[in-house]
């Protein structure tokens, strides 16, 4: 994750209160006496797993920036990895784009682009940041009940404020409507 995240504004989920990190790569911790800045999160949300793991429906969400060949989320003229890296500030100001990836998509059809990490490992084996093959195996073994047909990826280097206030709530509604009980998220 790039240090420039520390300069990005973000908001507390559900409240709209905004804080700004002071140091690159870190989250500001505000002591009680600090009245002009606010704590990022005061509590931890919690949803117990609705049913035993062997009956639950899971999905996968990776911030690794994967997409399917021919379906570049930034369009047919989307940047190459080499072009994306120096444009990381632009990514950090941009809306996140959630990419849907069917769970049985062949590896050779997957592409990776992300301005904030070395993607060479993920290009050789997407499971290092998008472990869909490992989840498919756990489903086949009966360890998890169902792996949802659709997995997801987006570029984690994105506007945190818009992710929180606009996009993640929308994505959550869509995923919930598909009967998903749980999500495995992978930070890249």
């Amino acid at each position, binding site marked *: 994750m790039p240090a420039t995240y520390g300069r990005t504004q973000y908001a507390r*989920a559900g409240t709209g209160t905004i804080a700004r990190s002071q140091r690159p790569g870190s*989250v500001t911790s505000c002591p009680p006496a600090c009245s002009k800045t606010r704590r990022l*999160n005061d509590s931890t949300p919690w949803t117990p797993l609705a049913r035993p793991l062997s009956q639950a429906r899971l999905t996968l969400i990776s911030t690794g920036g994967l997409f399917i060949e021919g379906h570049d989320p930034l369009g047919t003229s989307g940047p190459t990895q080499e072009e994306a890296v120096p444009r990381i500030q632009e990514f950090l100001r941009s809306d996140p784009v959630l990419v849907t990836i069917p769970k049985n998509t062949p590896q050779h059809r997957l592409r990776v682009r992300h301005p904030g990490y070395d993607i060479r490992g993920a290009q050789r084996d997407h499971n290092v940041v998008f472990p869909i093959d490992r989840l498919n195996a756990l489903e086949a073994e009966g360890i998890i009940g169902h792996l949802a047909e659709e997995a997801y990826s987006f570029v984690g280097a994105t506007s*945190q404020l818009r992710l929180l206030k606009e996009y993640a709530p929308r994505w959550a*509604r869509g995923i*919930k409507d598909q009967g*998903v009980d749980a999500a495995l998220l992978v*930070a890249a």
Partner: protein
Amino acid sequence: MSVGHTARVLEESGISTVAIYIRAFRHHAGNLKVPRTVVTPNPLGRTVGRVGDVEGQRRVVHSAVRLLSEAAAPGAILDL
């Protein structure tokens, strides 16, 4: 921070979550108050494991999904 923010929103929407971070970003789990976290000792860009290491990747993913049902309280962090 995107994973932590997204996990929190999903959890608030009634979807259980578990997040996998590398150790270098472990602090995000605590600072953002992520519901359930697995921390791996892997480098950036290989969160789940080494390229081609099917067994190692499986251990990480299996540990993560088990944490979904075994975590006893909000904010659980499992260090691998």
